[in-house]
């Protein structure tokens, strides 16, 4: 990874844009040291993004194993314990290794440029919060090869699966999750302090780009809930190894307590993975509709409302655990309330496009796909929120369909939209548009072949997290697997495109890159100089 990007950088230094580099700074460090010791927000952003993409491919490969096993009913390729390890580690990698680091990478690249700051507020800690991540995932992946196998209890590691019934690699799992949490907390502190303290003069709160707003709120959520995750994995550790009984009724604890603490973390966590996506879409839609964002202030308030509501809806993941009726009612209605601010956002995006001068460049294609497909995921979420019917949907493929629509066609599509949108600013060259369009259309079609039929098999009762299934689901699963393989292969187009982009192939772009783009990051040269805004600009 480093050598490819490193050569690319050398190219820039000798390339057309030499003037872009600041003269009064030390020369850009070269070689591996540049990446290991860096304090530069752009370098760290690049590291985060490449790491996230590699993890996306690794986690994707595990999904391919899952889909290959499920191509036909019956056990064919892997044994059930290994299948469980694949579903578990696929989930953990995609959540903590792909989506979250990708958003943090985008925040690193963009937040300082958008608010006119010279760098992140705490540059050395920024490096630390990145570099502990590859180590954490090395531990998690290595635990797959430990005697007894890796984590096989699902990414939600419910007790007693993770305590009584797990293998001894659980200790490694616990400590690697601790490191992921430390990384997220430090990253979030950096983002939040940068936004509070480093805005250029005149960059008032209500002038901040929405990507910055959504990340500010996301960072708050991260600092609030990642420590709770640390707490709950610690309890799993002591329950499993040191004889405590937090999640064991014989000692006065309760397995359901695990679910309460986990989902108190877990529900804000899913908004951590979607709020920055809302920010990205709110940047892209106005550019290609050539209109100001409709309802800027309501977007800010809607984001904050979603974040606050996320703390009081966690038990909608637990409708079937036997909670008292009053709790079921409360969590049902609180959950439904979230669709109000979310609806505000969707309507605002549509209203922004209304009578705009629309063009359909690749970032816009992904953004439009996001709006439609994320809304499908949101609506199936609303169905799941209805307590009585959730008893039917719970733990079926309907749930799998729901969260893959919001996370793949939601979060992941938004990340791809963001990469296509800002990549020319980062490299100074337009990416290969033909490849990008192939990537978009292949992904769009295959992702729907992959996830849409899951709704049907789920409603018909196919349970999630099983390596085998009843015969009547065979046809649908065949198509789901074909869609899965196609979606996986489509990402190799993206890989080829990114390698070309990092080798600086393509047409040079202007500073503004896109005709309708507005904001500080489009006023600096393309490619963005190594150091920007050493002295802050004044924003009017």
């Amino acid at each position, binding site marked *: 990874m480093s050598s490819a990007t490193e050569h690319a950088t050398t190219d820039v230094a000798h390339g057309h844009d030499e003037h872009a580099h600041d003269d009064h700074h*030390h020369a850009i460090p070269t070689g591996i040291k540049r990446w*290991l*010791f*860096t*304090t530069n927000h752009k370098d760290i952003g690049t590291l985060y993004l490449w790491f996230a993409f590699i993890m996306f491919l690794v986690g994707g490969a595990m999904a391919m194993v899952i889909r290959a096993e499920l191509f036909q009913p019956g056990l064919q390729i892997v044994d059930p314990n290994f299948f469980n390890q694949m579903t578990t580690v696929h989930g953990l990698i995609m959540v903590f290794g792909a989506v979250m680091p990708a958003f943090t990478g985008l925040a690193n690249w963009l937040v300082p440029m958008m608010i006119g700051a*010279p760098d992140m507020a*705490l*540059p*050395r800690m920024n*490096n*630390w919060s990145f*570099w*502990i991540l590859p*180590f954490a995932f090395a*531990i998690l992946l290595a*635990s797959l090869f430990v005697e007894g196998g890796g984590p096989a209890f699902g990414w939600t590691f419910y007790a007693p699966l993770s305590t009584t019934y797990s293998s*001894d690699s659980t*200790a*490694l799992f616990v*400590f*690697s999750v601790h490191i992921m949490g430390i990384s997220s*907390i430090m990253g979030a*502190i*950096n983002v*939040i*302090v940068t936004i509070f*303290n480093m805005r250029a003069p005149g960059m008032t709160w209500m002038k901040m780009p929405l990507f910055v707003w959504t990340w500010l709120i996301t960072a708050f959520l991260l*600092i*609030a809930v*990642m*420590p*709770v995750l*640390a*707490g709950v994995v610690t*309890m799993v550790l*002591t329950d499993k*190894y*040191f004889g*405590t*009984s*937090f999640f064991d*009724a*014989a*000692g*006065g*604890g*309760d397995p359901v*307590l695990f679910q309460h*603490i986990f989902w*108190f973390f877990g529900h804000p966590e899913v908004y951590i993975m979607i709020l920055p996506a809302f920010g990205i879409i709110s940047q892209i839609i106005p550019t290609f509709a050539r209109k100001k964002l409709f309802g800027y202030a309501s977007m800010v308030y809607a984001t904050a409302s979603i974040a606050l509501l996320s703390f009081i809806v966690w038990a909608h993941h637990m409708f079937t655990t036997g909670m*008292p009726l009053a709790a079921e009612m409360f969590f049902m209605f609180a959950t439904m309330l979230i669709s109000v601010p979310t609806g505000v956002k969707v309507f605002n995006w549509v209203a922004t496009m209304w009578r705009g001068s629309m063009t359909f460049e690749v970032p816009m294609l992904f953004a439009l796909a996001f709006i439609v497909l994320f809304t499908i995921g949101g609506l199936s979420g609303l169905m799941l929120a209805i307590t009585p019917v959730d008893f039917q949907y719970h733990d079926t493929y309907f749930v799998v369909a729901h969260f893959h629509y919001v996370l793949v066609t939601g979060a992941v599509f938004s990340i791809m939209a963001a990469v296509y949108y800002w990549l020319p600013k980062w490299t100074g060259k337009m990416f290969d548009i033909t490849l990008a369009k192939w990537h978009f259309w292949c992904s769009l079609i295959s992702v729907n072949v992959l996830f849409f039929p899951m709704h049907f098999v789920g409603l018909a009762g196919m349970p999630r997290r099983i390596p085998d299934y009843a015969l009547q689901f065979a046809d649908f699963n065949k198509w789901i697997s074909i869609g899965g393989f196609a979606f996986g292969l489509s990402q190799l187009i993206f890989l080829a495109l990114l390698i070309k982009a990092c080798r600086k192939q393509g047409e040079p772009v202007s500073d503004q890159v896109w005709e309708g783009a507005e*904001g*500080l990051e489009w*006023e600096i040269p393309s490619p963005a100089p190594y*150091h920007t805004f050493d*002295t*802050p*600009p*004044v924003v*009017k």
Partner: protein
Amino acid sequence: MSQQETPATYEKYYVPEQSIWPIVGAVALFLIAVGAGNYVVEVTRAKDGYGSYILAAGIFTLLIMLFGWFRDQIRESMGGLYSAQLGRSYRQGMMWFIFSEVMFFAAFFGALFYARMIAVPWLGGASNNAMTNEVLWPTFEAMWPLLSTPGGVQTTEMPWQGLATYNTIILLISSVTLHYAHVGLEKNKRSQLNVMLLVTILLGCIFLGLQAYEYVHAYRDLGLTLQSGIYGNTFFLLTGFHGLHVTLGTIILIVLYLRVLKGHFTPKEHFAFQAGSWYWHFVDVVWVMLFFFVYII
């Protein structure tokens, strides 16, 4: 939005050059996690292995990293590289870090409240759980503290009188003395700073000593152990993590004291002192919560 000339008054924000410490710290955390992950299994399953050595190597590396990183930081600060804006970054960063610590303790307090108000009563048949009690443990009666678990483990309650009360008073006084040390620093009364800080450190050490003694007392005399069911679990994890934080806080104060002896900090510029003192007050507040919810009620 458009760019203009920058106001001349702007103080340059210090962006450090490359640093080796973060990657050293990353290796340290890696060794700690691998070491701890193996050591836990080796200890509890009586297996042989290298977990403890890897863990020790990790902790050693972390100490080197902390030493080097803070040395660089102090040199830059004393060298006048820091602006007021950077000072605000550090202060805000510390505040958000303490907020994350608050949420860490919240998870354990949450477990305590849930066990006490929901899990234990339900096991005893409360709400609509009559059959839970009848079918699982018909002889179990709900109580708090849970001195007899459904599984039959017996234990004794840790009283709030005595050691815990002394420790509360000690920590409350230590917050006051630390405050006066801070006042001494701000008014440039170095001897007040010196003495009050030293008293705070001593109080912290006494607290830790009494806490250790309380643990011995619990294990030896009361039969209250980590394995004593949810009462012992919440008791030991809450007081234990608090004790770890007091230990860390005391180490921070000792480092601050050494820096005070070297003449560091001025009445206006003393972020490190302020951060250490915030941390200490936070740890103190956690103890008050703990004393109330774990010991008294």
